[in-house]
């Protein structure tokens, strides 16, 4: 077991890689009532083509299967795992993102039992044709719910416009049509490939004793047998650096228009310190340009082009990265033009401005550490790309105005930008 100390943050992180390859991290937080634990596999919606375990050739699986599998793991021969968790006073959940599927619980009592339940239910799949069929109706309603949600349509419309081939452009839940092709055998095939402990990470945070907790996890894993870990072969999509389409307009039953400008990152580092630096630099720059203290924000607000919903965000994971800027607006074309102009014409940022933005970013990072959910989920995301959440402050501090200008030169070009709008149906 390794102990990593973060003196300035007054945190201690306990780490061990178990014999079966599972990475376990424990961050004690003794002031809190609850313990929050996530058990995550490095498997998400983008992993739609891979060599299944035991096979020799690549296979394409139906869109939405990672998310479908997440739903189905909760059902067991003797009933629903939600029932077990609630008997033990816990609240359980799960989510599927582009690159991860996470199972989690939080509880203020019976933490040991709940942790046992978490490890066991994720590691004991039970899929039948009948339960798979039943789930299709439920997930169809989940998809319909998003179909009627203009913000979700705008978000995916933008991503879809950025990518030619990369599966990040496909909705995480798939479509009602694509999930109709899912079978229990396909689920088992995905499960066998991606749910091996060596492809997973367990994070526990709360008022726990790290040594006892680690011992419990070790015992739980030793009781089970796993095959030897194998390297997972995922299909590498060829993706041009420019966007797939410049503009996309979605007509919907809404009263207020929405507009989002997407920035497709050209050069995405695969992992590690370089990647973290790239992400921090881009995040800082976009916040400098479009955050509430920026001259642009004030002007656009005064011109009535934006309102409180205006947001800016940058995501970088595995081999893709993109920025999103926009919100509700009465003039979607004007807003798109303004945002693109600000990006393309950007030329300079001075050291004083960089310092101010660093302060802001460091402060918000501290704030996010108030949340156990944030710590566990983000730590896992970073760890899967060989970065550390706790290096964020150091990385932010190291940024120079030259680093910032470099990311602008990389991404702020016409061919990297796309516009997506939701407008009222005529």
């Amino acid at each position, binding site marked *: 077991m390794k102990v990593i100390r973060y003196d300035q943050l007054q945190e201690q992180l306990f780490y061990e890689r178990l014999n079966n390859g599972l990475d376990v991290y424990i961050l004690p937080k003794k002031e809190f009532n609850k313990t929050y634990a996530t058990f995550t596999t490095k498997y998400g919606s983008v992993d739609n083509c891979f060599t299944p375990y035991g096979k020799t050739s690549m296979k394409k699986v139906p869109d939405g299967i990672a998310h479908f599998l997440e739903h189905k793991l909760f059902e067991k021969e003797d009933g629903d795992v939600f029932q077990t968790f609630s008997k033990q006073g*816990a609240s359980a959940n799960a989510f599927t993102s582009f690159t991860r599927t996470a199972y989690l619980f939080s509880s203020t009592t019976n933490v040991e039992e709940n942790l046992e339940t978490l490890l066991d239910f994720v590691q004991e799949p039970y899929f039948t044709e009948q339960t798979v069929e039943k789930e299709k109706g439920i997930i169809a309603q989940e998809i319909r719910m998003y179909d009627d949600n203009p913000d979700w349509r705008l978000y995916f419309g933008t991503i879809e416009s950025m990518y030619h081939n990369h599966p990040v452009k496909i909705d995480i839940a798939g479509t009602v049509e694509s999930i109709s092709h899912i079978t229990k055998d396909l689920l088992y095939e995905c499960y066998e490939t991606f749910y091996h402990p060596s492809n997973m990470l367990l994070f526990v945070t709360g008022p726990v004793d790290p040594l006892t907790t680690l011992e419990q996890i070790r015992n739980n894993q030793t009781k089970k047998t796993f095959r030897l870990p194998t390297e997972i072969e995922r299909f590498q999509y060829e993706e041009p650096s420019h966007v797939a389409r410049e503009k996309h307009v979605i007509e919907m039953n809404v009263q207020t228009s929405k507009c989002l400008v997407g920035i497709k990152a050209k050069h995405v580092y695969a992992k590690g310190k370089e990647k973290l630096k790239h992400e921090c630099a881009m995040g800082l720059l976009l916040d400098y340009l479009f955050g509430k203290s920026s001259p642009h924000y004030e002007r656009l607000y005064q011109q009535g082009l934006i309102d409180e919903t205006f947001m800016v965000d940058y995501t970088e994971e595995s081999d893709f990265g993109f920025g999103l800027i926009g919100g509700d607006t009465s003039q979607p074309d004007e807003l798109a033009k303004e945002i693109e102009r600000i990006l393309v014409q950007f030329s300079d940022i001075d050291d004083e401005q960089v310092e101010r933005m660093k302060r802001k970013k460091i402060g918000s990072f501290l704030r996010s550490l108030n949340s156990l959910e944030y710590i566990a989920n983000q730590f896992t995301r970073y760890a899967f790309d060989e970065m550390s959440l706790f290096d964020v402050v150091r990385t932010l501090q190291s940024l120079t105005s030259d680093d910032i200008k470099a990311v602008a030169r990389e991404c702020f070009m016409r061919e990297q930008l796309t516009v997506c709008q939701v407008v009222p149906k005529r």
Partner: protein
Amino acid sequence: MFQEEVKTIGGLRLHVIPTKKYKTNTLVLKMKAPLCEQDITMRALVPYVLQNATERHPSMKEFRTYLDELYGATLQVDLAKKGEHHVITIRMDVANEKFLGDTSPLLREALTLFSDMLFRPLTEQGGFSVTIVEQEKRALKQKIQSLFDDKMRYAQHRLIEEMYKGSPYALDVHGKLNDIDTIDAKRLYKHYEHMLKHDEIDLYIVGDVMLADVEHDVAERFSLEARPLRSTETTTLTKRTNVQEVIEKQDVKQGKLHLGYRTNTTYNDPDYDALQVWNGIFGGFAHSKLFMNVREKASLAYYAASRIESHQGMMMVMAGIEPSNYERALEIIHAQEEAMRNGQFSDQEIIQTKAVIRNQLLETVDTARGMIEVSYHNVIATRQRPLNEWLEGIEKVTREDVVRVGEKIELDTIYFLTEKEGEKK
């Protein structure tokens, strides 16, 4: 649990909740007044105007730049209905300098900025800045209109509007679209002065501080005249003889089914704990009857849940379904309700539900926001009930209590937002 120190300073009630859980300190101001059609739109506008600028930082850019310098202090406002009260919340959150290797007293600077915002806003000729007010009027219009675009929120709003037609609770917290143009900067400022004199105002400070550390700083910066407590009367709905059914058609793919019940029980009542347990068995959680039957057994929905409005005596059921499944979904929901009335729930369900409610309450107070919400219940309800008593209350609920509180629950309105005919995909 959590400790809270309370001190009245003139017209301000200061609550300090000391805790070492967080890396930031949180300041939350709440202004409460009875829900009233005449002034709700002005109340909805005021906090958004205030967060733009102060005398000292007279533009959005200057104001926000100063927040950045305070290590990215955040400032947010929101509006809520708590029973027949309108509550404005202004929240500021600032890093605790001890994690920064910086020695400037950030909390004190945040308090100064907060009081500047309230007592020294940017004004001109006896009113707020005209430019800011006009800008915020436009933003408010857009906000009210956008409610229509979020179908889940829209359906919830429409249910309440139909169920409480003609009574204050039917009002939207953001006010009325048609009233916005009648408001000008001077009239709004006058109303704000009135609010400062008459609203019930609470300031919460949550973080690694004690009352003694901040009391003086607060007293120096927040001077509000003492005010008499307003008595609150709630409108009683006349009993409906038949359940009201409202069907609205729009271009949507999923139907939104929302049911409104009168629980005839609020946070003030001794059987409120039993109501929480009733709701928990019925639809509050993923082990509840609604989730198990509407979703897991019949595969009709992704979400199917119920929740109670603590201070209004209302319960809502919501489910997103295929438009053609309206009758089937209603039938299943009614059957669960019937089962609850007949006491068809196991002791296991009671124990399970109590455990989850207890967990939920304890988790709530792991966030600064949650601690404030738990404490603020006691302001709204004018009764003091520390969290440990609440937890004990839940523990003591018996099967008989659950059945008894259920007898008071009446279905009032069924609202269904569904697709237009002939638009089947």
